[in-house]
C-alpha cells in the first residue's frame, strides 16, 4: 500500500488513492452515467476548469485541483500579463505531479510538448528549439516524401531510398496508404483529405527513419491524440475539434501541428520500440506480465478466464499494440495520456498496470458470461462509450496502487513526494 499518508491536502493523487483504498469494487456506483458533455466531443475538457467556480459536488479533490491548476496556469502564462511571470526553468517533477491527474484543456498542448521532452524546460531556449525541430521535420519531408510527387525526382528518390532501406519502399508506402482512410471512421476530422495527407507524411517519415520496426498497424492510432491536442490550440472555443474543417486553418499552423505531432509521437514510439520490432517481444512480455498480475489481484476472474479457455494474448495483444486506444473513446485516451506523459515510463511500464486495472473493472460482467464466445465478444466490445475524465481518474489511481504493491513503487512514491 502507498506509504504516504501525511499532508494529503497537498497531493490530490494521494487523495484519489485513499478514496480507492476504501472502495472494494473499482467502479460500483456509476457504470453507465451519461457523459458530462453532449454529443461526445473527442477533445476532453476537465469539468472543474471549464467554469470559474469549481463544483462543490466534485468531492475532496476540488481544492487540490484548484491549487495545481493555478500552478499550471502560472507556469504557462505568457508573462506579459504583469501579474506573476513564469519561471525561467520548469521544474519537471512538479509539472509531472500537477499533470498526473489531468491537464486543463487550454494548457494541454504546451504541457504535452514539455512532458514529451520536445519543448525545452528552459524558457529562453524554447523559441529557437521549436523552430529548429519544425524546420528539421519539413526538411525530412523535402528529402524523403515531397519529391515523391515530382516526376523528375521520383527516380532519384527511389534510388536513394532503396539504397538505404532495401526492398521495403513501395510495400511500406502502400501499407500506410491503406491504413489512413480506415482510421477513426466515425470522426469527420480524420476523413478530410488534408488531414490524411498530414498523417501519411508523419507515418512515412517515421517509418523510413526507423527501419528496425518499420510501419506497424496501430502506430497511426498513436498519432491521433497528439494531432488532436496540437490542433485544438487553433480551433475556436465553440467548435468541436472532431468536426473542425482543417482547410480553414492557415498553412503555417497546419505545418506546426504536423511537425509537433511527428516529434512527440516519435518520442513516444522510442519508449516502446520493442512493441513493434520483429515478433513484437515488448507486447509478448507485457501480456505475460498482465497475466501474472491478474492471477494475483483478481484470482476469481483469472480462473474464470482460464477455465473458459481464454488466453490473455487473444484480447490483450490489441490493448498493448494500440495502448488501449481501440477500447476507449479518444477523449478518454487523451485524458489517459495526461497521466502517461506525467508518469515515469508511462507508456512502457505503467500501461501494463492500467491494463490490469482496466480488466478488473469488468470483473463482474466477465464472470457473468458463462462461455468462451460470450467472454471474448464482451472483451472485444467493452462498453466504454461514455468514458471520460472520471473513469480515467479511477482507472489510473487503481493502476497506480497496483504498481505500488507489485512493482516496489515505494521508492518511486517517496521521490515523488520528496519535492515540495
Amino acid at each position, binding site marked *: 500500500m502507498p506509504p504516504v499518508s501525511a499532508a494529503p491536502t497537498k497531493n490530490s493523487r494521494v487523495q484519489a488513492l485513499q478514496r480507492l483504498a476504501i472502495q472494494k469494487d473499482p467502479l460500483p456506483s456509476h457504470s453507465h452515467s451519461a457523459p458530462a458533455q453532449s454529443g461526445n466531443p473527442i477533445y476532453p475538457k476537465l469539468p472543474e476548469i471549464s467554469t470559474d467556480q469549481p463544483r462543490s459536488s466534485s468531492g475532496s479533490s476540488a481544492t487540490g485541483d484548484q491549487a495545481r491548476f493555478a500552478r499550471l496556469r502560472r507556469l504557462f502564462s505568457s508573462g506579459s500579463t504583469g501579474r506573476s511571470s513564469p519561471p525561467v526553468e520548469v521544474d519537471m517533477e512538479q509539472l509531472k505531479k500537477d499533470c498526473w491527474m489531468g491537464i486543463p484543456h487550454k494548457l494541454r498542448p504546451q504541457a504535452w510538448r514539455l512532458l514529451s521532452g520536445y519543448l525545452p524546460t528552459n524558457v529562453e531556449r524554447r523559441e529557437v528549439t521549436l523552430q529548429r525541430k519544425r524546420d528539421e521535420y519539413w526538411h525530412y519531408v523535402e528529402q524523403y516524401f515531397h519529391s515523391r510527387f515530382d516526376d523528375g525526382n521520383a527516380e532519384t528518390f527511389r534510388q536513394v531510398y532503396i539504397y538505404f532501406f532495401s526492398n521495403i519502399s513501395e510495400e511500406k508506402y502502400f501499407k500506410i496508404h491503406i491504413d489512413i482512410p480506415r482510421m477513426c471512421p466515425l470522426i469527420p476530422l480524420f476523413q478530410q483529405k488534408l488531414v490524411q495527407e498530414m498523417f501519411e507524411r508523419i507515418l512515412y517519415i517515421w517509418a523510413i527513419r526507423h527501419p528496425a520496426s518499420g510501419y506497424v498497424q496501430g502506430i497511426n492510432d498513436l498519432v491521433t491524440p497528439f494531432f488532436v491536442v496540437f490542433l485544438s490550440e487553433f480551433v475556436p472555443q465553440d467548435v468541436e475539434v472532431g468536426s473542425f474543417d482543417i482547410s480553414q486553418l492557415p498553412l503555417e499552423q497546419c505545418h506546426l501541428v504536423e511537425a509537433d505531432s511527428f516529434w512527440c509521437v516519435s518520442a513516444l514510439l522510442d519508449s516502446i520500440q520493442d512493441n513493434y520490432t520483429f515478433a*513484437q517481444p515488448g507486447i509478448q512480455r507485457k501480456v505475460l506480465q498482465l497475466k501474472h498480475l491478474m492471477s494475483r489481484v483478481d484470482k476469481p476472474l483469472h480462473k474464470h478466464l482460464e477455465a473458459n479457455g481464454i488466453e490473455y494474448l487473444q484480447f490483450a495483444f490489441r490493448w498493448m499494440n494500440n495502448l488501449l486506444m481501440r477500447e476507449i473513446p479518444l477523449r478518454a485516451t487523451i485524458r489517459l495520456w495526461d497521466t502517461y506523459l506525467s508518469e515515469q515510463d508511462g507508456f512502457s511500464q505503467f500501461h501494463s498496470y492500467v491494463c490490469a486495472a482496466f480488466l478488473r473493472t469488468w470483473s463482474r460482467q466477465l464472470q457473468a458470461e458463462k462461455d468462451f464466445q460470450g467472454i471474448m465478444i464482451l472483451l472485444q466490445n467493452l462498453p466504454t462509450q461514455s468514458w471520460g475524465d472520471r473513469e480515467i481518474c479511477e482507472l489510473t489511481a487503481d493502476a497506480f496502487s497496483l504498481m505500488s504493491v507489485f512493482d516496489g513503487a515505494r521508492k518511486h512514491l517517496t521521490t515523488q513526494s520528496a519535492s515540495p
Partner: protein
Amino acid sequence: MTAAPYNYSYIFKYIIIGDMGVGKSCLLHQFTEKKFLSDCPHTIGVEFGTRIIEVSGQKIKLQIWDTAGQERFRAVTRSYYRGAAGALMVYDITRRSTYNHLSSWLTDARNLTNPNTVIFLIGNKSDLEGQRDVPYEEAKAFADENGLTFLECSAKTGENVEDSFLETARKIYQNIMDGSLDLNAADTGVQPKQTLSRNSGQTPEKKDCNC
C-alpha cells in the same frame, strides 16, 4: 446471455488468412452480422467472431478467428492456425499481388494446421469486376491444383459469403461422418458438445445423422 446457449452439436474453429486489405474482417462481419462495413478498421493481431449454422440438420457453432494481414503480426497470428478445422484463405481479385502471395499463405496453412483442416480459397471483391486483376479461371486452376475449394465472393454485396463459410462446414462435417477426422485426436478444431461440460469425459455422444 442468449437462451439455450448449448443448443448445438459441435463447435468448429475457423481461421481467416490472407494479405492486408483483402477484406477478411469484412467477410467475417458480413457473415456474422449480414452487413457491410465500409470503413472497417484494420485488425490488430486477431479478432473473434461467432455464429451458429446448420449442416445436415445439426446445429454447429462456428468460432472464427480473423487474423491481421500485416507481416509484423505473423508471429502472433500463426499460433491460431493450430486447432483450426477450417481455413478461409482470401485474396483480392483486383490486386494481383495478394493472389501471388497465396502460395506462401498456403504453405503456412499446410504446415501449421492438421492434415484434415479444410482450406477454402476466396477471391473477394467480386463486385469490382471492372478492376479485376486476376481471372477467375486462373485462380480456379490454382485451387484445383492444390485441392482447394474455390469461390469468388463479395463482402460488400454478400454474394457467396454465406456459401463459403457453409461449404467449409459441410466438408468438415463430412470428414467427421466418414471417420477421416478423428474426434479424439488433438487440435482437430472440432469440439463435440459433450466435451464442453467440464465434468464429463472426452467421449463424444454418438449422434444419429440424417444425411
